[in-house]
């Protein structure tokens, strides 16, 4: 294949990466922004979403699209409920202390991982995409499902933007994010908002897991990469800044995708990590971040 088409293919792969990363990192960013909690277990929520999608696909008979549709609905709900319970039982009791919650979410990471290992086993299992249609470009054919993932990410990010900017719930979340104390002085139950946000963040991770599993297979250790990459994205974008998260996800997704296809995945990860180091040195608050209050 000539360089032009090859670069085009790599860009498409990068955009798919960016799409999934956008959704995952948006969840992490939301949780950090509102709760100031660094959720180390975030990648496990992606993994849970993927594993639940596998269960849905194998339990629901008929066309793969039915199982997929079921997974799209139940995965975020189940994972959100697990996150909600973890928030009430663990994070709230630690009073959202920044250091303590890091340790606690590391614990949560292992609990979720090992539980899935026991229940689901050590194998990577594929899930059929909901449709197989291949789009024929002049140089190569490309999975329409992957293009669907890009479209789905755009829709989901649009929905997040709408909720945050245009609804009452979003206004409450933004107020709680900027100033917890003053938010309470205006009747906002910051505590319950936190539980809801933690569940919503996990639900987004699960959604990313469902979207990615037809491309990547479900495996109990698959949470590590999304965790690392979303951390990179959230740091580059600026902690708690949603627009920064989107820009950084596209940047990292594209560079990771293109470098992986054209050179090697290892080089891609090196470049991403280097980018983080550079950002931390020259813009410690991220590209779009503001100094913490």
């Amino acid at each position, binding site marked *: 294949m000539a360089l032009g088409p090859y670069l085009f293919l790599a860009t498409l792969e990068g955009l798919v990466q960016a799409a999934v990363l956008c959704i995952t990192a948006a969840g992490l960013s939301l949780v950090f922004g509102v709760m100031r909690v660094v959720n180390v277990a975030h990648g496990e929520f992606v993994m849970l979403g993927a594993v639940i999608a596998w269960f849905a696909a194998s339990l629901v008979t008929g066309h793969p699209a039915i199982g997929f549709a079921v997974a799209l609905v139940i995965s975020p709900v189940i994972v959100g409920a697990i996150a909600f319970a973890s928030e009430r039982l663990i994070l709230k009791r630690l009073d959202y202390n920044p250091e303590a919650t890091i340790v606690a979410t590391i614990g949560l990471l292992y609990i979720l991982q090992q539980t899935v290992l026991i229940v689901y086993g050590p194998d990577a299992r594929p899930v059929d995409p909901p449709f197989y249609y291949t789009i024929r470009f002049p140089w190569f054919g490309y999975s329409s499902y992957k293009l669907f993932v890009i479209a789905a990410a755009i829709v989901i990010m649009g929905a997040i933007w709408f909720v945050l900017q245009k609804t009452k719930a979003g206004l*409450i979340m*933004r107020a709680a994010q900027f100033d917890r*104390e*003053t938010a309470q002085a*205006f009747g906002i139950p910051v505590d319950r908002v936190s539980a809801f946000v933690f569940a919503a963040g996990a639900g987004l991770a699960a959604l990313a897991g469902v979207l990615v599993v037809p491309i990547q297979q479900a495996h109990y250790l698959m949470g590590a990469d999304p965790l690392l990459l979303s951390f990179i994205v959230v740091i580059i974008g600026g902690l708690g800044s949603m627009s920064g998260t989107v820009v950084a996800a596209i940047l990292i997704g594209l560079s990771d995708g293109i470098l992986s296809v054209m050179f090697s995945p290892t080089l891609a990860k090196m470049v991403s990590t280097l980018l983080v180091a550079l950002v931390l040195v020259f813009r410690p608050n991220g590209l779009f971040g503001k100094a913490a209050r």
Partner: protein
Amino acid sequence: MLKIENFDAYYGQSQALRDFSITVSPGEVLCLLGRNGAGKTTALKAIMGIVPPKRGRISLGGTDLTGLPANRIPKAGLGYVPQGRRLFSELTVRENLEIGLMTRKSGPAALERALSYFPALRERFSQRSGTLSGGEQTMLAMARALCIEPSVLMLDEPTEGLMPSMISTIRDVVIRLRDEGVGVLLVEQRIDAVLPVASRIAFMDHGEIKAEMEIDAVRADPSILKTYLGVGH
């Protein structure tokens, strides 16, 4: 009427409020004075439940609010203008006011009323509140608190760092609120900032109220101030 009885509050081991008791009746302005670090802000935060008191009782209009979580206290009708204004600076003027309206699910009439005190804010509706001038930010912080239609309004050093013209605007609003029957708890460091509006004055030091007096007594014999303020003003 806001009634605070025997509040004790702590930051860790250190006691910041000792046996703090006050009442604010409808249509009066109680001024809380004291040096920097006397515990004035802590007193307001304890009332709001942000620094929960370890001991004591609070009631508003006869309703017992003791031990309620911080987000429930404003719903009883307690408005709060924190020190330094504490606007949601990334949010627009309109959004800041909407948050005030949400507190007690107030309708558009409450917004109109709040804006009637500060008509200048109307032109700034879609501006990010962090970009307002200092005076406008204070007006917004007050309007946001008025959106909850408070029966008692607490103001923590609202005139700090403002120009004289703005200070007199705020003073006029306080007087208007008082005359409309709102109880006002006004915190300031300097006596001259409150003399024209005060009904009563309470002096605070080391987390305690050292003295409380009617404004008439102060006007009759200004020398009693010297005892509490060190130098005569």
